[in-house]
């Protein structure tokens, strides 16, 4: 990832930075449908963890 973006991403997303990076990696080389499913799974898990569910 572009270093400028990486720095901004880390600053902007804070503790969610790792999640965004994971999502971006999970999207690589996948179809649109698979991308969405992969992102949604991660998102649900992260959101539930945040809420302590």
């Amino acid at each position, binding site marked *: *990832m572009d270093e400028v973006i990486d720095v901004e991403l880390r600053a*902007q997303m804070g503790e969610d930075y790792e999640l*965004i990076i994971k999502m971006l990696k999970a999207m690589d080389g996948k179809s649109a449908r698979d991308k*969405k499913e992969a992102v949604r799974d991660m998102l649900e898990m992260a959101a*539930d963890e945040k809420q302590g569910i």
Partner: protein
Amino acid sequence: MRNKEFKLLEIELYNVFNYRGRHVIDFRTDSEGNVFLFDIKNGGGKTSLFLAIKWAFYGFDNGIRYEKDGLVLGADDFINQDERANGSFHARVRFLYDGTEMLIRRECPDYRSGTTKLTLELGKGKIECAEAGAHIAQIIPPDYGNFFMFNGEVLNSMATDQKNRERIDGVLKLLGLKQLSDLRNILKTIKDGWETDHYNNILKNNELPAITGQIATKKGELDSVMRDLAAVREDREALQDEIMALEGRRRSLSDVEGIMGKLSKKNARKSELSGLIEGVMSAIDKNKTNSFLIFIHDDLKRLIGQLEDERGEVVRAQNSSQGKRNELSHIQESILTDHLMQCPVCRSVLTVEQIAQLQKMVETSKGDSAQHESLRMRHTELGDQIGLLRCCYDEEPVKLNDLCTQLFDYREEEIRINRDIDDLNQLMSGSEVESVKEVSSALVGLYRKKADLDARYNKLERYRKAGEAALNSLKTQYDKQAKLSDVQKKVSNRIEYVKSLLIRIDSLIKTIKTQKRRAILDRANDVFMQITNKPDVYRGLEYDDAESFSMHIERNDGQKVIHPSSGEKHVLAISFLISLSLNTERLNPMMMDTPLSRLDVEHKKNIGRMLSSLDNQVLFLAQPGELDEETRRSLRPSVAKMYESRPTEDNTASIVEVII
């Protein structure tokens, strides 16, 4: 920022376009120069080389179009026309990426099918096909090919069609923003889906407090109804007490109507009884001559019995001799009457003695007959007596008795009725009619009021039932909602979370895009002002709008150059592409196919100088005359290698040779 260096090291072409057989171009050099200059005549293989290198990386997929003279090229164009019988062609590219040497080999085994095989060697490893393609796409995404492997046509479209959505996306990809933008769009799609589920398919998140509010309102309404009901109930009870008291008073005064009614009925009955008594009296009067029979009823019964007995004896006496005597008397009388002296059968003849005896017997028989006659007459007499006595016994006395009983009952009833009538008349004479009227009038008012209260009560009761039903429904809804609220809460939290991510990603994209756009514009201005032949006329470049990367040239007075020349368009495009390249994370090679053909000497010279100043590897494919002496001079310090092409001996193919 450290850019990842990307350098071509070696290219091998086999039966591609006019490169018949195996053909190797080596880019390795000890020179510090970055420009690899191909000075190739028309038809010598410039565009072929350009397209073959591009194809080696991207094949026929990935949205890359291979065009020449306005025609889109496919596998049957790529294969060397003299080697079509062979069927296959391939290209190999050895390159250095971020310190790692790699080798890709793309082969089209059969130009008729157009499919290709790809292998990628990374150090000692080797990966193939789809996996290799994905890896190549990571190292040098297709957008690089679109932006940094260009010819005059690409430059022209780049200068005029920068607002094209695909091109904007391509730029964003190069800047690393497309991936973020894609992620942002996926997150938004997920969020929208969740919200749809949350707000439409499941009960809305804010429905619970809404239901609570509705329940409170409904409860308030119901309480009000219940209060009204209680008040009305009390009023009804008080009214009922009042009515009961008045009814009692009215009854205590007099039941005039009732008495009148009763009196009327009694009088009617009295009148009826009078008629009945009169009828019975008349009947008794008619039968009064035999009334004494009532007193001799038992004697009659006994007398009838005696007479019945005597008649029985007479009958028996009559029956004892009647038949035989009658027959004999008849024979004797016939004999004597007809003088039958001789029997017609036996011819016996009666004697005188016998005749005398017969006459005696006839006389005797006549004496018996008198006795019989006497019995018969007695029988008749007894029959008459019995009939008379039975008539007296069976009919008259009983009927009279019934009439007397009936008369007695009627008299009794008449006495009772007269007594009742006297009582009722007495009641009538003692009632306070006027007071009764007043009480009745008051009662009518009270009953009317009670009817109103009843109607109001019933109405309120309906409200109460409807209110309770509505309240129960709301409570059921509330309970159901309360059960769902955990799921809702979870989904709601997810939505809030993804919203917070979206806000930050949007902000991030906006910030970075603004930064990158500014950086690209600044760098493009630097390049443009170094290249342009009118630095004193033009102030530089400016974006057409706030979103795209489309640029225009601005004059010193701030006015947009409405109709730039084609050369100026090329300069603008080259400025943009160089700037873009410098703003990516890669120091990638730039491959240019006759980029200067439309430019004047001043522009060429300036571009030559500009290209020399870059750190990027530059493959410059020039045609004869494209590079004038001055341009060559400006390029020369940076030229790492120079190539020329010559035809093969049979003039059917090109051979590229290093001349410097």
